[in-house]
């Protein structure tokens, strides 16, 4: 399902944009405003992170947003309610969840996935869940009809990537370099080699997260991957310059 939708969108566009936000940070009200801006600026896919107290693979900016969101009372129920309103409001935009495994585990995996689907979510990224540990999660995804999105990283062997790709649906979340979220990737020939390696393994759409800064970065990966993930940069712009600046930034990426 998700895979087809992405492929359809790709027919008209060289590269899709997938900006990221942390739900409840700085508030659900501002999340709504931010999403409206993102959609208005042409974002095709939006990654919504449900905050967790132990965000192990996130860098300082997103980590702090997780902490703040929880302090302000964000919780899974509120995030699911917010997702439901938002998905209904923007039926042409694809929404996916990103969250650590304990969020779904504590809520009840099948209950969580069912609610996510009912809300209109189309895929779920769980950064601390290797497929080996995800037997129940994968089973429930299948039952419910949600795409489990797994991750390719530069340290993985080709054999491991093949293995991971078999469990992945919708898109593959590709990491451009070592390190937590928010570190800039050197966009050079080694990134090209990496993308080629990923592409050889799977026919699924590739979403690349690589610490994108500007239009040049976008041009470099256009035609090589399907989706550009924009995470930390969005948060930083929002914090420094406000929500309208995020819209300008996203628009400028494609000018």
């Amino acid at each position, binding site marked *: 399902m998700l895979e087809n939708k992405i492929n359809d969108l790709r027919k008209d566009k060289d590269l899709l944009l997938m900006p990221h936000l942390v739900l409840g940070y700085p508030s659900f009200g501002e999340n709504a405003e931010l999403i409206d801006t993102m959609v208005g600026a042409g974002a095709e896919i939006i990654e919504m992170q449900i905050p967790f107290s132990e965000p192990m*693979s996130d860098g300082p900016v997103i980590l702090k947003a997780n902490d703040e969101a929880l302090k302000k009372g964000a919780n899974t129920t509120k995030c699911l309610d917010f997702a439901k309103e938002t998905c209904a409001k923007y039926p042409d935009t694809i929404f996916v969840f990103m969250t650590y495994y304990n969020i779904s585990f504590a809520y009840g995996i099948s209950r969580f996935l069912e609610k996510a689907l009912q809300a209109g979510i189309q895929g779920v990224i769980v*950064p601390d869940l290797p497929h080996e540990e995800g037997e129940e999660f994968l089973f429930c995804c299948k039952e419910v009809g949600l795409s489990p999105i797994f991750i*390719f*990283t530069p*340290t993985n062997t080709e054999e491991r990537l093949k293995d991971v790709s078999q469990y992945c649906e919708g898109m593959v979340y590709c*990491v451009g370099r*070592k390190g937590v979220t928010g570190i800039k990737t050197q966009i050079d020939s080694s990134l090209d080699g990496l993308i080629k390696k990923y592409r050889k393994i799977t026919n699924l759409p590739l979403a690349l997260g690589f610490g994108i800064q500007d239009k040049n970065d976008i041009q470099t990966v256009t035609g090589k991957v399907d989706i550009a993930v924009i995470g930390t940069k969005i948060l930083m712009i929002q914090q420094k310059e406000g929500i309208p600046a995020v819209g300008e930034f996203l628009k400028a990426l494609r000018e």
Partner: protein
Amino acid sequence: MTKIKQGYYGQFGGKFIPEILWTNFDELIASYKAAKSNVSFWAEYESLMGSYSCRPTPLTYAQNLSEYLGGAQIYIKREDLNHTGAHKLNNVMGQGLLTKRMGKKRVIAETGAGQHGVATATMAAKFGFECEIYMGEIDVERQRPNVFWMEKLGAKINVVKDGTKTLKDAINAAFRDWIYSMDTTHYVLGTACGPYPFPEMVMWFQSIIGKEAKKQIMSVTGQLPDRVYACVGGGSNALGIFSGFLEDTDVELIGVEAGGKGIDSGKHAARFVSGAGEVGVAQGMKTMFLQDDEGQMRETHSVSAGLDYIGVSPILADLNEKKRVRFEVAIDDEVIEAVKLTIKKEGIIPALESAHAFAQVIKEAPDMRKDQTIIINQSGRGDKDIFIIADALGDKAWKEFIIEKAKVYCVGK
């Protein structure tokens, strides 16, 4: 321990890691297995611990304390006599040897109380590794002497200001470092927690305690002990001594959790006894956590920083479920009393962590027969935590000394 799949102990354990660390863990697991199946590795480890630390550590008969309590005969396994003053060094030196075998030149570690940080910095100095320690801001404030020593030993201290600013956040921060640095760096996790192979590997290095204790008690009394007590934070000292007696089902194993200000107060770190612990997944493992209904980790409390932790070893979670280990709880006030009594009766100063085990023995020993025996694992020594213990005892003269000392520094400025 029945293993369902690799790294599982009953329903607990696993390896919940970011994909980027997968290859790194493959390498670590292979290195751990190779070391474990190589007899000469353990011999090298024992010999290192004999010459660099104080192994085998003695088993001390606590005659005065036994007579005072009027029940079972009490023996104390003296992990406090290890170099750097706690059982932590056992694990750290073992992982140091592994780091060498893997050809890595840099080590990182988390620390709560600072004991594991000091032990890791010590190991790094001896082996010539670069060393960085992650420590929560709150712990840095309450454990300044350990920070001082880590720095003198050449380690860089990274103050962690995220989340609750304590041990769990330091663990997350160390993982974040590792996600970037895994090619050159080994993460020396300090307790029998985290993703496989850490729980099992740390238990293996700490099993040196149980191996020695069993041999020692057999040579002194000619029989197995009736009960073995250990405090339980992450669980490494407990698993270390328990591992010597797991197969001996007549030996009762008692793990003592931190009751903090009392279970009803909510300010504790008792994952089993409080009934508030729930199965969850965080810090790379599935185990019992103190968390809220939606899976967010809660704040914990204990007078002893080393037991102040939200999770517990998955191996202990399984032993609890199988009822092989009985869990009890000691509250802060009981712990302080236990320290006072042990100092007075035996001239031994247990660390506040270890004193939890003593506190439980003080409750139970009087009801046991005189021909029964007990081993307490004294995981660490208390004298180097003088700032914490003096505060906990509310010592007036010490307070005045600190005030006077501070004045000297102010004038000196």
